[in-house]
């Protein structure tokens, strides 16, 4: 019989596939410093959205909790940071922490409400919470600046060059994604998966399913908040649209595009989606049409998305990145 610990290591597959990831990261960094500034900004946005999609993917692929309001926590991150600078007078460097904290707090309050229900009712509650967030950001002129948002309150990118900030964002995202990986592979991650796969089974074994779901929700909100903060710093501004339905939908599309039920799905999905949305409109005016057909193709022919395709080609060995 195999040694139990070795067997467990084989089953749990928690090692990070650095052989694949390290060269990729180095290549991205090289591109960042060699290419023009606009490329650096594009890379920054891709990295930010990859983190956003990865945080949503924690809920969707592992918790089987479909959120129709994940942008709320991206928006809360952006506004948490911005308001900490504008209203509380913190220096931007110090306010960086405020964004994720505010997002996590929002996740705690809204999440406590949402996890009372399951399935489509859970999804509807997340949508309702996100719409409330959006409306408050949009209407509360005295505090949030309303629909005109908040701009010109800081030097964009903390005064860094495009490439410098891209580098900062990239490595922040890498660390955040690693943290998500550690969470997924931890006992907590196993519990999130257990509740997602069979709630009644988990409860019958003595697990408080709601507590687990709420914890997952807060974690996902926190990481979406990091993404939102990075985005607000990139542009030196915050707008209600950061918490809007269209970003939520983008996130859902990224996760499906990249491949449900895999850790790397959200990340690959964000990369592909951002590349498509950057380059396709230059060739074809109706880019949504192209997107529609790509999604149709994915849902019908490749239910495991891009990661599934990699696996079929014998590439993406594990759930590496």
């Amino acid at each position: 019989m195999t040694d139990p610990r070795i067997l467990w290591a084989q089953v749990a597959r928690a090692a990070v596939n650095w052989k694949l990831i390290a060269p990729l990261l180095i290549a991205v960094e090289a591109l960042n410093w060699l290419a023009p500034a606009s490329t650096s900004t594009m890379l920054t946005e891709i990295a930010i959205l990859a983190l956003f999609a990865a945080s949503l993917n924690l809920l969707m692929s592992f918790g089987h909790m479909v959120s129709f309001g994940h942008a709320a926590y991206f928006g809360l991150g952006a506004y948490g940071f911005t308001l900490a600078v504008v209203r509380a007078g913190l220096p931007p460097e110090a306010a960086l922490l405020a964004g994720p904290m505010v997002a996590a707090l929002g996740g705690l309050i809204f999440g406590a409400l949402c996890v009372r229900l399951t399935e489509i009712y859970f999804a509807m509650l997340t949508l309702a919470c996100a719409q409330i967030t959006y409306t408050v950001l949009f209407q509360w002129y005295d505090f949030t600046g309303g629909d005109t948002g908040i701009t010109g309150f800081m030097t964009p990118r903390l005064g860094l060059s495009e490439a410098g900030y891209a580098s900062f964002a990239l490595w922040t995202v890498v660390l955040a994604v690693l943290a998500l990986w550690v969470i997924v592979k931890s006992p907590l991650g196993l519990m999130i998966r257990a509740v997602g796969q069979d709630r009644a089974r988990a409860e019958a074994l003595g697990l408080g399913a709601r507590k687990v779901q709420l914890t997952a929700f807060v974690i996902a909100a926190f990481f979406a908040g990091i993404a939102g903060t990075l985005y607000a710093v990139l542009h030196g501004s915050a707008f209600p649209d950061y918490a809007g339905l269209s970003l939520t939908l983008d996130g859902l599309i990224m996760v499906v595009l990249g491949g449900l039920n895999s850790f790397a799905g959200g990340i690959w999905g964000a990369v592909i989606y951002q590349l498509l949305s950057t380059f396709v409109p230059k060739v074809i005016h109706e880019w949504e049409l192209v997107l529609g057909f790509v999604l149709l193709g994915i849902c019908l022919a490749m239910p495991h998305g891009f990661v599934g395709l990699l696996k079929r080609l014998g590439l993406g060995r594990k759930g590496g990145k």
Partner: protein
Amino acid sequence: MDPILSARHIRKSYGAFVALRDISLDIPRGERHALIGPNGAGKSTFIACVAGQLSGVEGQMLFKDENVTALQPAALARRGIGRTFQISRAFLQMSVLENMMAAHVIASGRWASLSRAIYAERAERACAMLDTVGLADRARDRVADLSLGDRKRLEFGMALVGEPDLLLLDEPTAGMSIKERHALMEMVAARVDAEGRTLIFVEHDIDVVMKIAQRVTVMVRGAVLAAGTPAEIKANDEVQAVYLGGGH
């Protein structure tokens, strides 16, 4: 004899349909108790009531002298009620060993832990339990790829991890051959006795019931028809008429 479980006047309806009408049942500590009855008698419904999985249950449920009527499933599990399901439920997209490890994490109460220490601590026990239920060589396989019988075994092993004082098994041998049925239930009985647990099991194979149970309750259409030792039940004319003679 001091009962570990005492069900008093349990009633449960699904809409207008009354699935359980006034069930009262005392289960002494350490007993192996079989719940039998034709399809639709309410056996699974009763098990779900004991495990706290149904809402709108009338009556009173006492477990270890505590009124547990309104408690949630997780709270009941932590108090010592473990169960398996008729249609086996395990974490389908996980491997067999991950399922067992999940049961260990839950039993340890360290559900929010980010440290993988517990994996190293419990790997040996998780594998030993797989060995006990005859799944040692399936550790790597996804539960979704297991036969129904093997899923039942896995579920039983997972329920044991929580060291329940009262174990509820809903048709633990469904999907197994006659030989496997007897082997599994003999193992269950030996284990339950050795560890001082109480067992309630639902079983359609009357030979298994006669061999394993110390006492039997016969349910028909949501009510208790008879209760007694296997020999008494076998000799009961009413039971013969509605159940044992009825093609089973």
